[in-house]
């Protein structure tokens, strides 16, 4: 670090100083503002959504903390999941996509105006959807599609507009090849749009068992065909960019892309193993769940081989550690999913808190960490402002340690829960046994939540340079770079 701050000085090396990003070469203020607005919106949803998550995790220890209908556990749980899915995860990934797609297409985004409209629609849908959920109005209690259809239609309109916007950008690209990131990012849109349409058309969901077949399909495609491909797409750009070297193998990326579509689409029914849904779709799901190991190995192998030999660069960067941790989580916890899908292990783990552990180890350990890595790596290049390194470090460690506590507690607790049910003791014994594990989950959750506050602060510190007065120098630097 050239000029120390009161906290970060050479005399008091609380942390090692990290590399700074290369000088900003962008002059496009409108672009910076747009991407930043998505990121800031996402950060807000993260803080809100996980505040709710933290609150409901306390309710396991203190169920009588209040008796307000709008804050009741059953109503708030979908507020948590929908806020982090459609508010946080979605908008954060889209912020990244709005940076990566124009960059790798060597041109401006097709339309800034439309992208602002998309942001407005998505935010509006999540706000209204959450309020309705708290009022007890939902679509029928189905996980991740609890928003009633008029709300989801607004959300979908935002996503469709953005898909159009990005597709036009790619179509008018300034180079011949479509970079692999754009395969994954557009894949996310082109899979999720039909998915939402299928999930919300009522014709084949007229009794609870048919609904369950669709639910299994939807629930897994939601995580696997939206968050997963876009998170991977961003990483295919930011990882080589931050390391300043090419991706290890382009064709592995292509292989992982097509197997993602072929295998992942088939595995939704593993959410309802042993349910009275058709046995053959369950068996297909188990087989392809194991097949997913190919996709995983291709994807993570590619990232890890790209990182090989760059340990120093990773240690010197404040964004790459997030990407490394996210990549490792992607492999470990998706492979965990493949194991979970086996019928013998489902016998123990299904319906237990082990699943909740898996949900967070993946959605948090994989998707959320990767997005953080990309945002820290890319935003400063656009806005001209870097986050304070110390606070990025605090963010990283609080999040990772918190998640380890969360995931560890529920993995152990969930296994014991399953074993307790198998042993045939009264059900309430499994509830009593979980008490201490739920407490540890709340402790881990507190650390995670604190890290989100730090993240929100860091995002604010990365705001586009032009916004604040008295930052004229940064502006000049931007202008000069543009000239």
């Amino acid at each position, binding site marked *: 670090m050239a000029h120390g701050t009161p906290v970060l000085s050479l005399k008091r090396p609380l942390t090692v100083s990290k590399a700074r990003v290369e000088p900003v070469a962008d002059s496009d203020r409108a672009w910076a503002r747009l991407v930043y607005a998505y990121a800031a919106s996402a950060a807000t949803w993260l803080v809100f959504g996980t505040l709710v998550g933290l609150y409901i995790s306390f309710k396991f220890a203190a*169920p009588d903390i209040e008796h307000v209908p709008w804050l009741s556990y*059953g109503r708030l749980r979908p507020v948590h999941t929908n806020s982090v899915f459609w508010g946080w995860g979605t908008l954060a990934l889209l912020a990244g996509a709005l940076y990566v797609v124009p960059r790798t297409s060597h041109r401006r985004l097709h339309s800034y105006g439309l992208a602002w409209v998309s942001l407005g629609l998505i935010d509006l849908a999540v706000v209204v959807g959450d309020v309705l959920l708290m009022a007890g109005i939902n679509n*029928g*209690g*189905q996980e991740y599609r609890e928003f009633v*259809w008029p709300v989801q239609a607004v959300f979908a309109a935002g996503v469709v507009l953005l898909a159009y916007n990005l597709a036009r950008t790619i179509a008018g690209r300034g180079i011949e090849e479509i970079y692999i990131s754009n395969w994954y990012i557009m894949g996310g849109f082109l899979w999720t749009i039909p998915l939402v349409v299928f999930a919300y058309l009522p014709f084949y969901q007229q009794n609870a068992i048919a609904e369950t077949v*669709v639910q299994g399909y939807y629930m897994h495609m939601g995580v696997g065909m939206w968050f997963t491909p876009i998170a991977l797409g961003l990483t295919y750009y930011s990882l080589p960019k931050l390391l300043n070297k090419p991706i290890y193998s382009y064709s592995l990326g292509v292989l992982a892309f097509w197997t993602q579509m*072929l295998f992942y689409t088939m595995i939704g029914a593993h959410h309802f193993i042993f349910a009275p*849904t*058709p046995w053959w779709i369950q068996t297909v799901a188990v087989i392809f769940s194991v097949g997913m190991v190919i996709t995983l190995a291709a994807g993570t192998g590619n990232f890890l081989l790209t990182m090989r030999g760059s340990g120093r660069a990773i240690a010197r960067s404040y964004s790459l550690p997030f990407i490394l941790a996210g990549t490792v989580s992607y492999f470990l916890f998706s492979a965990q999913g493949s194991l979970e899908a086996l019928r013998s292990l489902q016998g123990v783990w299904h319906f237990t808190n082990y699943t909740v552990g898996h949900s967070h180890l993946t959605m948090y350990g994989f998707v959320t960490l990767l997005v953080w890595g990309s945002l820290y790596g890319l935003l400063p290049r656009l806005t001209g402002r870097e986050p304070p390194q110390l606070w990025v470090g605090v963010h990283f460690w609080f999040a990772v340690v918190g998640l380890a506590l969360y995931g560890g507690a529920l993995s152990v607790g969930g296994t014991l829960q399953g074993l307790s049910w198998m042993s045939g003791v009264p059900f309430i014994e499994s509830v009593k046994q979980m008490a201490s594990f739920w407490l540890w989950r709340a402790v881990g959750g507190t650390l995670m939540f604190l890290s989100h506050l730090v993240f929100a602060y860091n995002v604010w510190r990365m705001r586009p340079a032009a916004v604040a007065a008295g930052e004229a120098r940064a502006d000049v630097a931007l202008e000069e770079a543009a000239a």
Partner: protein
Amino acid sequence: MSFHKDHWLLFSVTCFGFVGLSLIIGILPAKWVQDNAVPLPGMQPLTALEKQGLGVYVGEGCVACHTQQVRPLEMDAAFGRPSVPGDYAYVTPLGPWAPYAPAVLGSQRTGPDLTNAGRRQPSEVWQYLHLYDPRAVVPDSVMPAYPWLFDVVASAPEGATVVPVPAPYAPAEGVVVPNERGEALVAYLLSLKQAPLEAGDEHATAAGGSAANGADGLGAHAGGTR
């Protein structure tokens, strides 16, 4: 023509490939299951009150913690016989805002399975007490209390059920009676009873078959969907 250079080719194969797979693994099986889930002989459709109660169940998010599916596994035997598709034939959409059947099967058991809730706890009074404050009847429960499904009144109106809430949980003054939504929910819970599978019924044999073979995956059809 190459996926690397032709964006419309790449986009359409990506999109329509997924749509095709979705039809095979999601939509057509759902349609087929829907058409083949016939109510069992002993089953009654939900009454208007019970259906309203299902709406309360869904709105309050009970499905976050409770399943209504018994698997063909030994550990589930305490909850009833293995579920079959016919068991859900009468769980149908609730209205224009939710034109889909509500998800009652669930995916987590923070609390016990409710497939046979009405048989396990047939007492209306127990159900009311439990909803008013679960800890009044199950001290270690972590389930939320639902006092907003009840009214506290000076004296019970004609014909109303008074909930005998024990002292530490009772309001300081007045008596507790369920309101309309509370009554509907309890009516729904009490209606949760598996209909018997008639001997020789094709569902019974299929369900039995998967009970025997389910754990190792050799069962031909789970729960008689064929």
